[in-house]
């Protein structure tokens, strides 16, 4: 957690939201997964502080929450970038060269898959199949899908997001 360990900055409003989710699910059998999904939606990730709140709220041990949170790849214990890049490494994309797309993005941003840029703007992850195999190779930035990619196009796409950010400042 070295470079990504930010101090927890949860707000009161977020906590209230989480508490109401826990309240609604308290008596549902197998509630832990649905609650963690919602908690990640609220906070963007699952820091230990949030896991502790979930554990207390559902009356289970922190180790159990931690065990579940670390088992599933969708749950993240570290914060993600403002823009989440996800490169598909499913078979259809891989066969069409998505490993080269991932390498190019890593190269351009200077970080590896699973990491976040120091300015917090981008984080890169790989995923297995977003189901858009007809457009292989594919990457997603937040909710937008970019298909039939070549390494050359990657720079242009990333620049679009960087420019937006520059403009916003």
């Amino acid at each position: 957690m070295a470079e990504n360990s930010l101090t927890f900055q949860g707000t009161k409003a977020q906590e209230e939201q989480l508490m109401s989710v826990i309240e609604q699910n308290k008596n549902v059998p197998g509630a832990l997964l649905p609650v963690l999904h919602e908690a990640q939606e609220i906070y963007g990730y699952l820091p230990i502080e949030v896991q502790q709140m979930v554990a207390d709220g559902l009356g289970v041990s922190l180790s159990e929450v931690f065990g579940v949170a670390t088992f599933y790849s969708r749950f993240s214990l570290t914060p993600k970038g403002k823009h989440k890049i996800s490169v598909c490494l499913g078979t259809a994309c891989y066969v069409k060269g998505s490993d080269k797309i991932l390498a190019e993005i890593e190269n351009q941003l200077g970080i590896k898959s699973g990491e976040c840029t120091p300015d917090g703007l981008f984080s890169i992850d790989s995923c297995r199949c977003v189901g858009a195999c007809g457009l292989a190779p594919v990457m997603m930035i937040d909710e937008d899908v970019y298909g039939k990619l070549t390494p050359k196009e990657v720079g242009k796409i990333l620049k679009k997001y960087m420019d937006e950010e520059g403009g916003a400042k």
Partner: protein
Amino acid sequence: MTLEELNKIKKENEELVMVRKVVKEKGEELAKHTQYRKQVLVCGGTGCTSSGSKKVVAALEAALKENGLEDEILVVRTGCFGLCSLGPIMIVYPEGAFYAQATPEGVAKIVKEHLKEGNIVKELLYKETVHEDGSITPLSETNFYKKQMRIALRNCGVIDPENIEEYIALDGYQGLYKALTSMTPDEVIKEVLDSGLRGRGGGGFPTGRKWMFAKASPGDVKYVCCNADEGDPGAFMDRSILEGDPQCIIEAMAIAGYAIGAHHGFVYVRAEYPIAVQRLSIAIEQAKKYGFLGKNILGTGFDFDLEIRLGAGAFVCGEETALMTSIEGNRGEPRPRPPFPAVKGLFEKPTVLNNVETYANIAQIIYKGSEWYSSIGTETSRGTKVFALGGKITNVGLVEIPMGTTLREIIEEIGGGIPNGKKFKAAQTGGPSGGCIPSEHIDTPIDYDSLLSIGSMMGSGGMIILDEDTCMVDIAKFYLEFTVDESCGKCTPCRVGTRKLLKYLDKITQGKGTMEDLENIDELAKHMQKSSLCALGQTAPNPILSTLHFFKDEYIAHIQDKTCPACVCKSLIRYEIIADKCKGCTLCARNCPVKAISGTVKQPHVIDADKCIKCGLCMSNCKFGAIITK
């Protein structure tokens, strides 16, 4: 709801929906009976949404308004049509004009010229549907659709998945009605048993027998589960069914509930499928409103409810016991069987768990009868199978074929062949648990047993076509990397075995392998098959074993000759410039990140192999095809 009410809804919507099922003249006649002159269907599945179908719909609606056509033309957002590589897809009925790769600009033209003035915009149609003499064929007559037989996908791309009445129009809930009012649970199970339906998730276990065991298990509380945790990378049929026809899953699960005596069901679906989750939620709400879920369904006293549980990105949760452990809120680790889920499953109660595609067949089997269903397919594999066709193939998309169709028919006719004039090398089925079918077996009929007999498996339905540019050792390594990532770690053979197998493959792709490694791989693989706890570990060696069986020469080339015949494995290839073709434009030298290319302007350049990091930038930049790999 009574049968009269159900049939009334069916009748009210039938003509509207049938316009999309029948062709040309008949459709035109039917359209006159509806309030719309024409209907425009736009695919709202994940593939087409990714290529921009939302913008197309917005542009379409705006253009219709502008031309004052919004009361005459109906816009329907459907699920997947199957031809994902041509998205966004748009079809105009009753003429069945198939517009591919639609854009907002194109849509404006189509609205004006076609929908308003009645002239089909031929240059925007999918080219295979336009003949030289200018006439057009409907989609159902194209090579892609002709050989298909759609049962599980029957409503995908036809109905609006967010409108239960359109589902009812095409015999929806007739199967449930028939089961609840005129059949005993045992008769329902017998019908499914007689149909010969086998689990479509990959295992191929007879569905009826699963139901029979669950019914025979004592207990007041039982569960029905649906496995929609489609994890095989490259397979997307379950997602497409949930997106395109969610009601058929609800109906089937209610039928299963009636058959085994369960009143509660869970659909476990990947969180990575937001559109599927959303449509299924809407469908459940509508089914409740119309009385197909809840208390006293269709006035028969049968109660059944459904809820959705989201997965969280763990491939192992596609395994039945792991899936149930995950619904229970735990780490999704498998547990030993027996006891089988039919005896002791979810929350320790008897449970039936089937895959999405399996359920998609159920309502039709009950409604039309097992005799009809079992007349399709081969002796041991009845019915149809949906495949997600991907990789090096022209028509990437979703196809449903009767069992027994040959691989050649799928690739050459439905799939439209291999692009760029390349040669077919192998088809990979069954994903990380499966194997490959090499070109010498291209005439193998596709069914459960013939695929097993050549060392592959049906799997859940991913079918990746590989051409001569694919290295089989690299593909085996790709799948092993996947299983290493996804092994849950509970049992040693899988946790340690997958890592060791990957190490051997790493060695081989780096040119450091020995022939002894091949023997060790074989031995280790056999131990894993026998001693792993669940199917993930038991089948993890399959991609290696089958490539090793059919493409041993490629492994040997990597080991003994230190070459990669397909020029994929980085450590074993080198980039070279063909002096005759090089014009000395300097583009490669300028783009090389490590300055490994030297030469003067207008003179052939040279690559310094010691400096080269094999990034391939020079090759992708060269305009003259002068750079090759060896």
